[in-house]
């Protein structure tokens, strides 16, 4: 009786020891995996800024499979909450962390200082550290191509642009779009309406309606919802999407969309981290790096326009064409850069004026 009990107990004990051993072995195996953290500013959803980043995350998961363990945190507000989330990710052993919104810059920097062995990559900012790099895309290159499409398809010679806030990134887009359209129709007019919000479908809709009522027959947007595409579809006008392919929201209206692609960048960074060769970079990629592209053109776009867009795309990728190549003349008629030169990256990143051809006035 006693003996059996003892035996059973010993068996149990052995079982526990074995199980613990397995657990330790298991976690040791997990340690070999590279743990990666992604911080998103909004829900992933079906289109938009975060959705594009998540496509990149999926590409990493597919490429590296068992070698990596990825954790994503959605809807993290910019500010104090972001610091807590990023710190949490670093503390729980994630070795490379991608912070995918501008407002995460200072929180990321703070956490990076506290975790020198963790690599941090921050999107669209300008600060770097020993273990913090930043990455951004030349969205304006895609805007230039979209401008060629819009200019070609416009009958009224008026284009409309629904914009969020007058910061350089948005102004780059408006100016490049205008300059792209001017290559097709030199006297085209671009009207801009600011909604002073990144996301408010109701107001975006109202702004789009106002632009179409004022004669714009191709509209585009630098806001986060799909309301502008839906508005154009309803009024039988054309629209150009942003972030993601938005054609399902307006199959007839949607000419194309300027899309972002982070897949290759994320794969490269993760590979570098696995190889122990990660270094903080300051990357501003464009069409050449496949970070920016256009989604498939609508069937309504004729062949000669497609050829023009292809040619411009190839020229930008080859470095022969610069969307802000001289002469760049601003709205007031001042020449910002003479023929033969172009705006420098520094000048592009600080742009604070409209180019000639934009008829609205810039809020000061």
């Amino acid at each position: 009786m006693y003996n059996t009990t003892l035996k059973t107990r010993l068996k149990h004990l052995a079982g526990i020891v074995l199980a613990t051993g397995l657990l330790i072995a298991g976690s040791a195996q997990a340690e070999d995996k590279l743990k990666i953290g992604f911080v998103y500013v909004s829900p992933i959803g079906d289109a938009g800024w975060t959705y594009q980043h998540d496509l990149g995350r999926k590409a990493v998961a597919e490429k590296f499979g068992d070698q990596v363990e990825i954790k994503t945190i959605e809807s993290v507000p910019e500010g104090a909450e972001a610091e807590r989330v990023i710190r949490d990710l670093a503390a729980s052993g994630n070795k490379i962390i991608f912070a995918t919104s501008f407002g995460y810059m200072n929180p990321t920097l703070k956490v990076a200082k506290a975790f020198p062995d963790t690599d941090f990559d921050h999107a669209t900012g300008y600060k770097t550290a020993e273990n913090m790099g930043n990455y951004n895309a030349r969205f304006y290159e895609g805007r230039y191509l979209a401008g060629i499409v819009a200019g070609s398809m416009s009958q009224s010679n008026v284009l409309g642009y629904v914009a969020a806030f007058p910061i350089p990134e948005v102004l780059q887009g408006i100016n490049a779009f205008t300059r792209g359209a001017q290559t097709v129709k030199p006297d085209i007019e671009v009207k801009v309406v600011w909604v002073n919000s990144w996301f408010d479908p109701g107001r975006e809709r109202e702004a789009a309606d106002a632009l179409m009522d004022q004669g714009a027959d191709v509209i585009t947007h630098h806001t986060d919802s799909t309301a502008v595409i839906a508005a154009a579809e309803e009024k039988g006008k054309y629209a150009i999407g942003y972030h993601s392919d938005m054609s399902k929201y307006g199959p007839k209206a949607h000419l194309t969309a300027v899309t972002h692609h982070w897949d290759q960048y994320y794969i490269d960074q993760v590979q570098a981290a696995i190889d122990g060769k990660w270094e903080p970079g300051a990357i501003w990629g464009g069409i050449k790096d496949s970070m920016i592209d256009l989604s498939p053109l609508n069937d309504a776009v004729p062949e000669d326009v497609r050829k023009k867009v292809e040619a411009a795309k190839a020229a930008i990728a080859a470095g022969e064409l610069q969307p802000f190549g001289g002469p760049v003349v601003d709205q007031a008629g001042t020449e910002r850069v003479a023929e033969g030169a172009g705006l420098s990256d520094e000048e592009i990143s600080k742009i604070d004026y409209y180019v000639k051809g934009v008829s609205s006035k810039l809020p000061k």
Partner: protein
Amino acid sequence: MNPDTLILILVATIGASVPLIFAALGELIVEKSGVLNLGVEGMMIVGAVSGFIITTETGSLWLGVLASAVAGMLMALIFGFLTLSLMANQVASGLALTIFGIGLSAFVGLSYTSATLSGMQPLAIPVLGELPIIGPLLFAHDPLVYLALFSFAAISVFLYHSRAGLILRAVGESPASAHALGYPVIRIRYYAVLFGGAMAGIGGGYLSLVYTPLWSEGMTAGRGWIALALVVFATWRPFRVLLGALLFGGVTIAQFHIQGTGVEVPSQFLSMLPYLATILVLVLISRDAGTIRMHAPASLGKPFHREAG
């Protein structure tokens, strides 16, 4: 500005105002009964997502509108149970309802963010709808616009020309007296709260089903709070609520047109204009302290205990 543009602006104004008209008129009835429900934004957005889901699934816009109203009422029922049956604090419960509604709608609507709807066709009234100027302005809207205007008329008549309206106002002024006269104060307040929920729900449904038409998280973007403010600034009078909503919508639309024409005014200032103009006008027309006291429900926000009466 040519007359055509003016008509375009006015037509767009009506659409922009409809969600506010529904939500604010509903809240007006709630507050007239002496209850302050700060959950309008939450009820609106739950109405928006519920209507959108039902219409996507069934293909029927009217079922969607009905679902919006029912969803708004269910939200209001939660609020009513907390504040009227359990005597919880109305301000806190209303705020909680808004936060809950925003989260709930985001969760429920997760798989519907990519769905598309065709919207509601305007109700083309023959002959009248083809008249110049007046036609597009008054007789060529979608049916919900007429429902909003009808609600306004019905509520005005109900409040000031019906016995039931008188009882409702009595409950809001002095629940103890109403109770002493034999009126079921709590039940009447429940009715008012449920009606307010249905109206807020339809207001949200209009946004997702007709106006944009799409569903995305947080799409009401503060319109519920504007509706709440309209009721107060309109000193609890239906016509001024309607006027305030139209004014707010009108200035919102007009400022987009002004931007498009290239006037040199900062857009941040223009974005502020709808709020500024609405508050200014409503405060100016109702600046007489005596009339405000007359129209404000005296027991607004105070819970009613039967034993205390």
